[in-house]
């Protein structure tokens, strides 16, 4: 049964600067089905990251969500207070949003190398999220859980006792993924999860993410600017430009016959590996 995990309806978000009002997100609508991978692609300033932040309830001054709805269905089946109900994220209280994060919607941030606490061991950081959500585990259960999570992202158990600086970029990113899925969220938002990573490591990290997503039967919202990465990663794609969604569709359709001129330009500007062309 395919249900909509996420439904964004006519979302509008503005940023208020001393000089003018910037329409960061100007009325976009899209939905993500359960088990689906949806990509939001655009250059910097297109508003894609703002959309992701809004879904996580993280828009703060000088930004403001002006109008629109963000419906989230958390089919967790667990004891979460919001399980199996459809809620409008915009209408939740701060406390409710906090509980939703990680357990319902999780974020794999850009540059996880910077979001990990440099003075805490990996193990402690992985447990933080769980403790925060009131999950109590005995010492033995904690070890088991950590081992399980690390294995699911292809890391050795020893990593738990290391500090972030002892790990490579790819490994840190995988730790970030492990933390993100620790409470089995239904929607994983990956915001440029592989920028600054080498091509081979990038592939490993993405393949890890897909595998996990399958296992958890979750959905992924992938935000980025790399069209090539989108082609390899997502089922459906939304192209954003200046706050608007200029094209949405199956990824094969979009690359096969792009309708919008901006999309066409984006695809055409990618350097090819098969044919040399005049660059000017």
């Amino acid at each position, binding site marked *: 049964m395919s249900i909509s995990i996420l439904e964004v309806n006519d979302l509008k978000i503005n940023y208020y600067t001393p000089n003018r009002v910037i329409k960061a997100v100007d009325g976009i609508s899209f939905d993500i089905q359960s088990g689906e991978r949806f990509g939001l692609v655009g250059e910097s300033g297109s508003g894609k990251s703002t959309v992701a932040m809004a879904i996580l309830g993280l828009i703060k001054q000088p930004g403001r969500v002006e109008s629109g709805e963000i419906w989230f269905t958390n089919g967790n089946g667990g004891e979460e207070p919001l399980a199996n109900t459809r809620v409008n994220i915009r209408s939740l209280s701060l406390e409710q949003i906090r509980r939703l994060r990680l357990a319902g919607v999780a974020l794999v941030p850009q540059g996880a190398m910077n979001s990990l606490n440099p003075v805490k061991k990996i193990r402690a950081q992985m447990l933080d999220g769980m403790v925060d959500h009131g999950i109590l585990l005995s010492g033995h259960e904690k070890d088991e859980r950590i081992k399980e999570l690390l294995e699911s992202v292809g890391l050795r158990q020893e990593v738990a006792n290391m500090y972030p600086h002892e790990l490579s970029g790819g490994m840190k990113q995988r730790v970030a993924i492990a933390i993100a899925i620790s409470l089995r969220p239904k929607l994983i938002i990956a915001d440029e999860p592989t920028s600054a990573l080498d*091509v081979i490591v990038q592939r490993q990290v993405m393949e890890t993410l897909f595998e996990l997503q399958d296992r958890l039967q979750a959905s992924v919202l992938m935000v980025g600017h790399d069209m090539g990465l989108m082609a390899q990663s997502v089922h459906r794609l939304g192209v954003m430009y200046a706050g608007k969604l200029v094209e949405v569709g199956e990824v094969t359709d979009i690359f096969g016959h792009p309708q919008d001129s901006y999309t066409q330009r984006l695809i055409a500007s990618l*350097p090819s*590996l098969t044919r040399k062309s005049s660059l000017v």
Partner: protein
Amino acid sequence: MNEMRELNSPALLQTRGVTKVFGGGIGKSKTTAIENFTFTIEGEPPSITALVGESGSGKSTLAQLLLGLMTPTSGEVLYLGKSLDRMDASEKQQFRRDIQIIFQDPFDVYNPVYKVDHLLTVPIEKFHLASSKSERKQLMESALVAVGLDPQELLGRYPHQLSGGQRQRIAIARVLLIRPRMIIADEPVSMVDASLRASILANLQQLNRDFRISILYITHDLATAFQISTNIVVLYRGSVVEAGDITEVIQSPKHPYTQLLIDSIPKPNPSQKWGGGATLSRTSSAADPGQGCKFADRCPHVMQACRISRPPLFKTEEHRAVACFLYNDVPQIGLEDLDTIFVSRQTTDNG
């Protein structure tokens, strides 16, 4: 086929057995960034060669060594046959005039207390490129125009007032005024907006084509490397694993690492997905590679021989060399002759 090297015209830039090791202090682990690297850049005819590698491959360290900004732990870097650390002041000046660089970070090349003019006036002054103030002004303006910039708009401004693309172009204009024989471009477009990359790379092609300057294009981005280069050298953890005609290497890579690399590039074509079988690396890549082939523990074709010694370069085709025991049925080729497998033709439009 042995190339007889002319004894009276030494190569433009050469490295001989260059090794660079970092760390190794008390209690600190050593990292070998570059190992026993021997490489020759002829300079004639001027061509664009890509040096491709991921982080940890040693490509940036190599750039620093080639420019004399860093000294090797062992081995030497030679400019026109003369070792860099045995040059006198005037030879050093000539070296600096002949070999220049485009750095990755378009912002950090500028000293923030000075206007952007400073970037251009210093080499003019130090290399005596102009004999009067008006000549200097003319030189600067024509260099800026040649890279597609408007001198009136840019001269007199401070670096933070310009965009990344403009700053990088001025850096290219600087190189143009110096008229070196060779440029080392270290990731020149990775910190520039995607929409401007093609035009900045076009500027580099222009330098090669119209001003006959050789370019060593150092990058991790195979696609842009393919677009502007004729030849490629693939580095893995400080050693050459494959080299040759770039079109051939990209279309039919022979070294397992190159195959993995090309396979992992996210192609903007949903029907060409990543191939299966990427080995998840479980160990940190900083682990000491030991005696054998550095790629051994990630290689799907690893054999006994691979763990015992480092594979030499095998010349599998006229324009291809691969450092892998899978090809040990063809003749070997020494690192010092690597440049003989390069396609030597000047880059033209539409390759």
